[in-house]
């Protein structure tokens, strides 16, 4: 059983220069633990700091203070420590159109991390690993997809390649920053189900960052609600959604469209206007 733990994470950005210098605290004292085989959802509006948490966890940003612990050991900032850390923790980005290189084939995208992280050596072993990765993300027949370039695939297929690439170094934890928000609705569930299957069958720990409360509820064990850099509410996913405590969580929930409440907004507005006229 592995754990990825974040303790008192703070990330500040410097703004301006000279006399107009100021600091923006994007993440303010955030702590949580991601366990193997579990999914934690991080929800909040744009600018709430959820992507900064993701980028810091993937060590694309250096924390201002606080600790990241992998299996109970603190991760230092040295090159070798970061390289080792990235064997285990990988990121899936929001935009599968921007995160794959249009000049390279799918095979190239998967072979590079396999070689760089020393997972496979020799042409045959690399090819075999590549095929296995594609099968794990349901891109079959693997030979066909391996030869494709990003523009020959749909958004959902590209995101599957991005997931396979994240798995290539042997990652045990995935940080998925809005992995389906750029995809068509009918494809979203397929990609989320893939992440859920990997989490279940391969004991993957997933940090699922989203602003979609409905999928956060259904695809995660625990939900953290972020607002202005702080976690304002956390708990088992059903509890947070069905019995929200914090005002901000309630606002988010009230704003989320729900198909079961069709006609709600129209009727509310009519009632309001009728009230104003009276």
């Amino acid at each position, binding site marked *: 059983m592995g754990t990825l733990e974040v303790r008192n994470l703070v990330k500040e950005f410097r703004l301006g220069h000279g006399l107009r210098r100021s600091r923006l605290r994007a993440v303010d004292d955030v702590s949580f633990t991601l366990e193997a085989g579990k999914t934690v959802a991080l929800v909040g509006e*744009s600018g709430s700091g959820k992507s900064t948490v993701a980028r810091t966890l993937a060590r694309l940003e250096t924390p201002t203070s606080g600790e990241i612990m992998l299996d109970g050991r603190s991760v230092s900032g040295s090159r070798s420590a970061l390289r080792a850390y990235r064997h285990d923790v990988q990121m899936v980005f929001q935009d599968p159109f921007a995160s794959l290189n249009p000049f390279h084939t799918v095979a190239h995208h998967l072979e590079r991390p396999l070689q760089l992280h020393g997972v496979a050596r020799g042409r045959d072993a690399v090819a075999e690993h590549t095929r296995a990765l594609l099968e794990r993300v349901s891109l079959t027949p693997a030979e066909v997809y391996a030869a494709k370039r990003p523009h020959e695939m749909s958004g959902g297929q590209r995101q599957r390649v991005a997931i396979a690439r994240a798995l290539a170094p042997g990652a045990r934890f995935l940080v998925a920053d809005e992995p389906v928000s750029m995809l068509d609705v009918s494809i979203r569930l397929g990609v989320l189900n893939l992440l859920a*299957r990997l989490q279940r069958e391969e004991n993957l720990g997933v940090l699922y960052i989203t602003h979609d409360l409905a999928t956060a509820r259904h695809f995660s064990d625990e939900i953290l609600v972020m607002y202005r850099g702080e976690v304002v509410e956390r708990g088992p996913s059903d509890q947070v959604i069905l019995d929200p405590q914090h005002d901000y969580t309630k606002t988010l929930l009230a704003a989320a469209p*729900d198909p079961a409440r069709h006609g709600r907004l129209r009727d509310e507005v009519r009632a309001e206007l009728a009230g104003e006229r009276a």
Partner: protein
Amino acid sequence: MTVPVLSAKGVSIEYRTTPVVRAVRDVSLTLHRGEILGLAGESGCGKTTFAYGLTRLLKSPAVLTSGEVLFHDRVGGDVDVAALDGEALRAFRWDKVSMVFQGAMNSLNPVITVRAQIDDVLTTHRPGMSRAERAGRAAELLGLVGVDPARLDSYAHQLSGGMRQRVMIAMALALNPQVMIMDEPTTALDVVVQRGILREIMRLREQFGFAVVFITHDLPLLLEISDRIAVMLEGEIVELDTAENIYERPQHAYTRRLLESFPSLVGERGGFVRSGAAAGESGTGHAPGSDADAGPGAAPADSADSAADTTIEGTA
């Protein structure tokens, strides 16, 4: 009560590329005065192309190959939109039917102020208005959409995404159009901001009585705001009914599949969730290739996305 304001009969639109893409196929639709008509469907189903056809905004290689679009003016007779030309077309656009474009956040001109952009609409279409009248109208418009009129002298980059979107809606309202076509007007926005803007649109609709064609792939959102919803698949409207019927009694397999793509926020945790059981069922009912980006120049049909995964998940 149900007086038509815009009607399309047998509209077909092709992209004259090689091979020819039939983006809209024989679509007939009547928009009633003051109603909100939702147009749902995924990328590449032809919904934006159809909207452009309604407003004569199609650009080569897109061609309206058959069908007619009639605008039933509040005063005066019917206008054959497809036959409009030159000055008549220029006068028709924006005045009768205005549009809030997809990615409206980036449709404002970055090098002139909000005031100059609203002014441009008014000087073009209402040459009789004095400078003072135009200034008054511009301030009034921003007030209507809930933006401080002090922002008239701002440039686009000085406004937040939600404010830019509101300014776009103000511009679409400028000439009191009878129809507003909104193409994914809130997609890039946060849920909280999105809700504020939708609320504003609904209020303005009640106040001014314009009809709205609201285009999005977000079916739960459409269910909340629309009077009727048309579901589009591969260039055709496969189902058109009231929001209530679409939700309670969907007839077409594709409508059911779209509905199942959205887990309910507070309802039961459906069987499809994480086990993928219901998604597997819904995967059997949809038309082949319907989940592909079937737009012009797009990728070949996507077989892996729904089919492969749902079978695997279904057996799990």
